[in-house]
């Protein structure tokens, strides 16, 4: 089975990689946190993406950041880390009910903070789509292009993700409803 770049191609030296991280590392780290749901997971995700970048360096060294970003998004969307903690679904919050222990701790915090945490409970692909659409401000077409899927898939994932966020945060005090 072929492996990407195994044993072939030029690899970056430490200075090249450090230069990339000096210039763009913080924003990439923030993207990784948003995609993975926590700082620790974000760091692991960024490291996994960087390892792939190293393997493909010769092919992508004209735009390593672009390749790194696409890798981040696709690793995140693909659920690169199949651990039980992201496969577990938080019991859905219904009106009038309190959430499970994990969410009780933030019950007193506003909806804004709850949303950020609830985002981490979404399936990886939905979370990735919402991060790309709402945090990075990508269009539907751009998001579909980055993830290599039809726009309809992006659309439905965003819809499902938002619907699940609404359910997860239903018991928090919302801002006054708009007409």
């Amino acid at each position, binding site marked *: 089975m072929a492996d990407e770049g195994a044993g072939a191609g030029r690899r970056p030296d430490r200075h090249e990689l450090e230069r990339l991280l000096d210039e763009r590392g913080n924003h990439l780290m923030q993207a990784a946190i948003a995609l993975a749901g926590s700082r620790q997971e974000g760091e692991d995700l960024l490291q996994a993406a960087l390892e792939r970048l190293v393997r493909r360096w010769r092919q992508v060294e004209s735009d390593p950041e672009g390749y790194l970003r696409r890798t981040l998004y696709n690793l995140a969307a693909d659920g690169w880390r199949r651990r039980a903690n992201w496969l577990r679904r938080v019991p859905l919050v219904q009106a009038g009910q309190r959430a499970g222990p994990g969410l009780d701790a933030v019950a007193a915090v506003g909806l804004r903070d709850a949303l950020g945490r609830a*985002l981490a409970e979404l399936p990886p*692909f939905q979370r990735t789509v919402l991060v790309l659409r709402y945090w990075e401000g990508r269009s539907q077409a751009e998001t579909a292009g980055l993830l290599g899927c039809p726009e309809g898939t992006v659309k439905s994932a965003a819809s499902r993700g938002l619907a699940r966020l609404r359910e997860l945060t239903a018991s928090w005090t919302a801002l006054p*409803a708009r007409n």
Partner: protein
Amino acid sequence: MTDDIERLLPDSIGKLTAGGTAPPGLAGRVLARERRRRIRMRTAMVSGTAAVVVVAVLAATAAAGGTARTAGAVRAQTAAYVLHRAQNALAGARQAGLIQQTQFSGDGAALFIAGPGHCDGEYCLGIADLAPGGEIWTYRDRLREEGFANTGKLEFDSSATITSSGKGSTATGEAISYQNRTWWRDSSQPVRPAYPSNCKQGDLPPPDGSTVDWPAAVKAALACGGYRAVGHQRIGRVNAIKLVSAHPQPAQTLWINPSSYLPIRVFWSYNYRTGPEKDTMTGTFHWLQPTAANLASLSVHVPAGFRQTRPQGLAVPGLALIFRNPAQPAVPARGSHATTPATH
């Protein structure tokens, strides 16, 4: 609330990520891990596993361009191995009680949930909006379906438990209409039986209103022997084994995970129109452990504020396909029986 969620989401994410900085020493750690990985790869390639050797023979033979007869014999042998392993994996997945989640998305081809509305004889049909996206979960005798309108909006959600007796199968469960903001419980809904193995029909049809047990359907399709292995293709981060069907319409491609031998993606391509344009449907499989949280995905969750109504029928197991067939209207009239999906 809808507006609030979308309006607050950018700030929420921004707050979550605020202050995030690349950890020191990351470059060094990455390079060190990559060096260790290359050493492991070299070791693994020398010793190898049966699966890796088999698949490598397939690729190497095709690349080397050996005699057609030899290459064909080797290719047939390794394809048989792949199909055999895949069938076993599907049987194992069922035995292990894995939840099978399939996400569908169509380009031209679309799905609609055969759901509440008019009931006539064998099953009820009624939802008329095209749904370019849909999702099915199956687990043993349980089934859940979501359907999305062509606007991307969640249109319909239904879950059911299928029971079989000497008199046939029935479905019992709940359904939600997001358009009407209603929900209901229903039972004793006659349903068609699980997808039977029909090698005359060809290979794996898209869910057509009768598919309850997707792993069994895929296993049956593979057993018909209509697929051949044509190499590899990267699906996400998996270098998947690619199988194509000999069935001409729809053209089908199935990708198998070379580690688990479970299917990870299926693709149908229909060409009912003149010219090169095709209508396609893609199904992406996910195999989930039956944890409490994942099992919860098999049940619908009624949103607050939705009104319970009288029973209006349950979605027929599986989804039905509508294609942009110039001989047929794209969307059946609401309230009428949907047309039978394009035959294949």
